[in-house]
């Protein structure tokens, strides 16, 4: 665990870079330090591994004040990745990744084994890449090697200063996804600096928003979006924070579970009754257990009646898969111009139903639930 207590940094010329910042990062969590340039986020991070000396306050690593440790030992226990990457051009990929293991006197077999392991983890073929030089890599590959290097000696803590900052947006998005997957496995305690609100929301378990050296708000991303503490936070997260919060929530959170369904051979009159009883004009059609087949509308029933569902239904397996975000589901609904979207698992088995109406309610709920106000126009 990393714990900052009244951390302050004043430079000799009197500039206050960080002012009385306190927060903690629990084991295995990713904490994003977010804010505009000059807000003190990088300074805060660099005080954790003592690249910048602290002026007053304390930083505890698992309960020990970091000033009581040898600074180089301290740094070897913390992975360090920076935007500029800083790969050593005269060393191969393998040698770069082995930097900290070598400093810790690992044997060369151990170091190489670890390098291969990390390249695999980063989705790079060790046999192809381990002996390459940084100049032979693409930007995205370099960024991956930079992250692999920071994981070299398997440190429990990682400090990352805009580690995906220097690459194009598409590659960045992919690297973020990959890294989240990796973090899910390795569960490091991470301090992650960025100025990009979208990256912060996507990556962070918690986000610390800083301004002029002060910690303005420290909360999970959903709360940051739903309940910004003041005007600065609201402006910083942007006017589209509603949409952003949809990016954070999975469809499971908003869908109706086990919605009423009908089968292809059901009688249309019966279906109409069900609709009346449930006060709906839309029902999902399934078959063979729970496999999504399509849907049926009340208007179509009237034209086709009498008959069975198969005479009136629309065969359509358009759906959102479980695990996708509400933002993605909403995009599908808007694209297809539908107000109802079935939710299925990977085997196309129906899991629930997402309606536009529920979505609207949910957004309202997150606002009021957290004490925030509806967005001002």
């Amino acid at each position, binding site marked *: 665990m990393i714990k900052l207590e009244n951390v302050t940094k004043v430079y000799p010329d009197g500039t206050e870079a960080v002012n009385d910042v306190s927060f903690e990062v629990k084991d295995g969590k990713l904490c994003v330090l977010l804010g505009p340039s000059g807000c003190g986020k990088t300074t805060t991070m660099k005080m954790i*591994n003592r*690249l910048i000396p602290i002026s007053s306050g304390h930083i505890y690593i698992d309960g020990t004040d970091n000033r009581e440790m040898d600074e180089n030992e301290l*740094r070897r226990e913390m992975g360090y990745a920076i935007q500029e990457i800083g790969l050593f*051009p005269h060393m191969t990929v393998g040698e770069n990744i082995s930097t*900290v293991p070598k400093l810790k006197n690992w044997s060369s077999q151990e170091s190489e084994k670890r390098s291969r392991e990390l390249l695999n983890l980063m989705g790079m073929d060790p046999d192809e890449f381990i002996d390459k030089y940084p100049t032979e890599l693409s930007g995205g590959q370099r960024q991956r090697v930079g992250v692999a290097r920071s994981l070299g000696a398997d440190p429990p803590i990682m400090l990352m200063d805009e580690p995906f900052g220097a690459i194009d947006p598409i590659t960045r998005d992919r690297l973020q996804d990959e890294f989240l997957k990796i973090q899910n496995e390795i569960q490091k305690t991470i301090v992650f600096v960025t100025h990009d609100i979208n990256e912060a929301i996507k990556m962070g378990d918690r986000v610390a928003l800083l301004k002029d050296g002060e910690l303005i708000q420290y909360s999970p991303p959903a709360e940051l979006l739903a309940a910004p503490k003041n005007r600065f936070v609201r402006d910083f997260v942007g006017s589209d924070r509603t949409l952003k919060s949809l990016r954070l929530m999975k469809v499971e959170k908003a869908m109706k579970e086990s919605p009423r369904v009908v089968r292809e051979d059901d009688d249309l009159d019966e279906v109409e009754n069900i609709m009346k009883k449930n006060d709906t004009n839309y029902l999902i059609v399934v078959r063979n257990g729970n496999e999504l087949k399509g849907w049926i509308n009340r208007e179509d029933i009237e034209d086709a009646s009498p008959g069975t569902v198969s005479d009136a239904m629309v065969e359509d397996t358009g759906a959102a898969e479980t695990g996708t975000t509400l933002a993605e589901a909403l995009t599908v609904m808007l694209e297809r111009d539908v107000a109802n979207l079935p939710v299925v698992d990977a085997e196309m088995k129906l899991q629930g139903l997402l309606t536009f109406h529920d979505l609207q309610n949910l957004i309202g709920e997150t606002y009021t639930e957290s004490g925030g106000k509806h967005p001002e126009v």
Partner: protein
Amino acid sequence: MEVWQYINGHWITIGNWTLDHLWLIFVSNSLAVFIGVSLGIFIAGKGREEIADTVLYLAGIMMTIPSLALFGLLMPLLSALDLPSIGFLPAVIALILYGQLPILRNTYTAIREVDPAMIEAGRGMGMTPRQILLKIKLPLAVPVIMAGLRNAVVINIGIATIAVFIGARGLGVPIFRGLRTSRMDMIITGAIFVSILALLADGLLALAEKKFTPEGLKK
């Protein structure tokens, strides 16, 4: 024709002069590299910008002193210190001084220009300043330092001919004697051999430069 005759008749003597010349260059430039690189590393250190400016300025001035005058200046200085004021020693000292600027300046510049991101990464991973110097800065600076050495050697091969005026041996001898006795063949012989030496040294050091360039920096 005369030149060819002269060379043909004095193979052994010319060979000895060449060896003397080479020895002078070898000794002086080995020392010059040692001093220049150490001093270059020192002045490239943090907070030594002013010292660096002064040292580089002095090294620059050194290059502007005509070699003959420098030899002249060294003589009284060395005799005041009770050291031999003519011959090998003053020649070596003068050549070390002339070799300083290219070696010192290249070392200094190469170390200062190592990408700060690499140093930052090194520090952040827990490398000590010494490890950063030995594992990052110096390997990256080697090609540039080698280029400086090459420069110094080529300059010094020329200047070493003048060392004959203070009694050092080398390929300056035939030139000096030729001048005094109006023997064009001797002057040209000396000049030819000095040029050949300079070209060979330049070529060899270019190869060495390539060899010492870390694999990852070659394009």
